């Protein structure tokens, strides 16, 4: 077999993944926290204040990375859900279901910080504009996926049903992202571009990018630790899970 395919097969085996994730986790947490510290320092201290918004603009360093993560995680969840539905790979099921609460957390942060930011900038906590609304719908989609997953007894059937729902809900992603272009709204259009010149000062930009990287690491770390626990729970009947539990019990 092709070594890549072989590695993929190995990765899909829960005990292997459990061990691998356990080894990766400290690194992910470490990198995440370091880049978080750098990003926060850059954003809160080094970046100059905005000529229009004064220091309030610094909310951008939590708002925008969380917003990006809310979309990114949904896409991640849907892709894993797709794999789970087609190939019935247990690891994908676990990853999809483990990412839902993290995505919901980032969506919540985006909504909360956005509305805190809106108060000084727009004079209101909340308006019913397309981006805000579709982001709220995104939160409900996350809740729906989590609720459906909780509601079904059989874990594997539950994750397949919830993955299906996640796939159906993916139509909302482009709406969130392009809403500012499609409808004219209060919310800011795209200012950060990967390709072509960005529209903001580079001294303001780099902490934002660092924060974006930091949230990715934090997501990866949280995802892996959730997936590990979920695999333990799913595989409770298996030998390796018992060994893990007993080893841990002796250590504790």
């Amino acid at each position, binding site marked *: 077999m092709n070594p890549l395919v072989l590695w993929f097969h190995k990765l899909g085996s829960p005990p292997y993944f459990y061990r691998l994730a356990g080894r990766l986790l400290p690194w992910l947490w470490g990198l995440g926290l370091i880049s978080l510290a750098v990003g926060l320092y850059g954003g809160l201290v080094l970046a100059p204040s905005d000529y229009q918004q004064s220091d309030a603009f610094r909310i951008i360093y939590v708002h925008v990375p969380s917003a990006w993560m809310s979309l990114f995680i949904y896409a991640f969840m849907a892709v894993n859900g797709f794999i789970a539905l087609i190939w019935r790979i247990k690891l994908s099921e676990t990853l999809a279901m483990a990412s839902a609460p993290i995505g919901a957390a980032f969506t919540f942060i985006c909504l909360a910080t956005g509305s805190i930011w809106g108060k000084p900038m727009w004079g209101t906590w909340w308006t019913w504009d397309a981006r805000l609304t579709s982001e709220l719908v995104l939160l409900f989609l996350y809740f729906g996926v989590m609720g459906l997953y909780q509601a079904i007894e059989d874990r594997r059937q539950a994750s397949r049903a919830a993955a299906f729902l996640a796939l159906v809900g993916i139509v909302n992603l482009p709406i969130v992202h392009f809403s500012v272009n499609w409808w004219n709204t209060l919310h800011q259009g795209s200012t950060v571009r990967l390709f072509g010149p960005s529209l903001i000062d580079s001294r303001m930009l780099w902490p934002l990018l660092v924060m974006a990287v930091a949230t990715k690491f934090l997501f990866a770390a949280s995802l892996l630790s959730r997936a590990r626990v979920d695999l333990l729970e799913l*595989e409770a009947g*298996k030998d390796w899970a018992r060994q893990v539990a007993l080893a841990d019990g002796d250590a504790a």
Partner: protein
Amino acid sequence: MNSPTPPETPPLLQARGLAYLRNDEPIFGPLSFRLDAGDVVLMEGDNGSGKTTLLKVLSGLLPPSAGEVLLNGEPLTLARLSHQVALLGHLLGVKGELSPLQNLRFAIGLGGLRPGITPHHALKSVGLEGYEDVPLRQLSAGQKKRVALARLLLVPAALWLLDEPYANLDREGITLVNRLLELHALRGGAALITSHGAYAYTSGTPRRIRLAAVDPELAA
């Protein structure tokens, strides 16, 4: 699995290394067995031993976790399946609001009609003459079960999967089920039925029914 199958006639139903896991716990172990035309097999097992689950896997409602099911030598696919298979589960699949006749007409529309029999005939032969137009909910549990049995008579399926067909029936009803099974076997059909050990034996079982215990240990 090891028993050589006669090459000329593939068995009506064959299970090869069939297993089902729920939440990763085995519900029934790897099972291999076959049913040929004319076979009636009684499946026994204690509460929760997986009888209902096995029937669902055999009918295609649940995907097996391991192994495969062959119908007439071909692997079971969801499409064009139930021309071969009729499942009668704990839930009868009949509507309480409709009459026996309406229920049977719907079943025929869905599953087709065996030649030479009408819904009226079928109702008569399960002892429901005169109840053709009474809504099912006004019938007793045993009479409802008889309507479901009439459906088996009408729909052209060679393989019957019956989950506890004797439950809820009084003695007369039990005899009826045995008569239907006998007829079906004579016509070249096959049936796999489940029952709680204690019950099925009690009525004078007709000779022609071959009983075989399907157990993980006893797998043929």
